[in-house]
């Protein structure tokens, strides 16, 4: 059976207009890629929000897979934005195939 390797999966919730800043950070951490998922609504310390595309109040979820070293680089790079930009970041270990790609 195919052998798998362990990598970090990081997911970052961010205002859609700021996605670019997060993906730039991922690129400069030399992670091989990223994928963006849509999000429709939520609630947090700053209250409730809903996707209202006319006003552009939508958020996105950026997901990226990387080695734990690069993951640490990315997390450090994003740290300053976290509070000011209200990012939500979670990270955990996953098994991937073709590990050399990440």
């Amino acid at each position: 059976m195919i052998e798998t390797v362990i990598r970090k999966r990081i997911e970052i919730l961010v205002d859609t207009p700021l996605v670019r800043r997060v993906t730039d950070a991922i690129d400069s951490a030399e992670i091989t890629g990223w994928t963006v998922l849509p999000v429709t609504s939520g609630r947090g310390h700053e209250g409730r929000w809903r996707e209202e595309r006319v006003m552009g109040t939508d958020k996105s979820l950026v997901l990226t897979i990387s080695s734990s070293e690069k993951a640490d680089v990315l997390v450090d790079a994003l740290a300053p934005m976290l509070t000011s930009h209200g990012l939500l970041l979670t990270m955990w270990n996953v098994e991937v195939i073709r590990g050399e790609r990440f």
Partner: protein
Amino acid sequence: MDTTAFAPFASPVILFFLLGLLASALRSDLAIPEAMAKGMSLYLMAAIGLKGGVAVAKSGVNAEVAAALLAGIALSFAIPLLAYAVLRGFARLDQINAGAVAAHYGSVSVVTFVTANEILGAGGLVVAGFMVAVLAVMETPAILSGLMLARRGSASDRGSAGELVREVFLNASVVLLLGSFAIGLIAGPRGYAEVQPLFDSGFKGVLCLFLLDMGLIAARRLIDSRSLNLRLVILAIAFPLFNGTMGVLAGHAIGLDTASIAALGVLCASASYIAVPAAMRLALPQADPGIYLTMSLSITFPFNILVGISLFAGLARWLAVS
């Protein structure tokens, strides 16, 4: 005749807006798909841009137009300065939120302008085509002064400067509005005729459905709102009253026709809820949309649609006869 005084509330455009407010207030699950709402807003901007461009292609440009454009730019720059002071002093907002809100009130609301066109037109006041250009040029100066105020002293990260300039001057609404204005100017009445069925005949109907959605969202935001307080609510009504009056007086001073005076008043009274929020989320992510969007969309916008437009029309008429 005083049609402007009562007609509005018999117009489907206004009635659909009221239906939206009511449905949300009653917590109905009525909702317009996001993609459709966004599509309608783009349609409305393209249509109003084309219309204005064609009108100017007919009328040509003159000193009056130049004066109106300059007045618009000046007002858009100036309004945030005063608004900022009041937001800091009276409403005690922090620098960043005060700057963000100020930018919204200096800038303009395309949909308020469009609705004013319909209501004024129904009341016999036909707004000059070049006012669309004034609308377009008033969108961005306020963003600049608002950002300047919000960042005074602070060295907060401002993202790449290029990114910001793009967001301010190549903002989707600015590009679409100016772009279709230019297209109307180039294509002229003959070219416009081809696309009139969609952009002209369909216009009011789409405006109805769009205002239905704006009513739904405006009321829902108010219900969900946590960040608003009485002082902010007061300002969200005081600003349009004051700025609108300034606009009418300025229009009168530079000698615009009555309809355009009223329109300039509406532009100053209106607060942006499409172009500026987009710019703010990029340039001032720390500012709270729960404040600036709820003020401009949930209070100022309905106030202008239901009261302001008729008010400034009346004021413009009064100045005309006196």
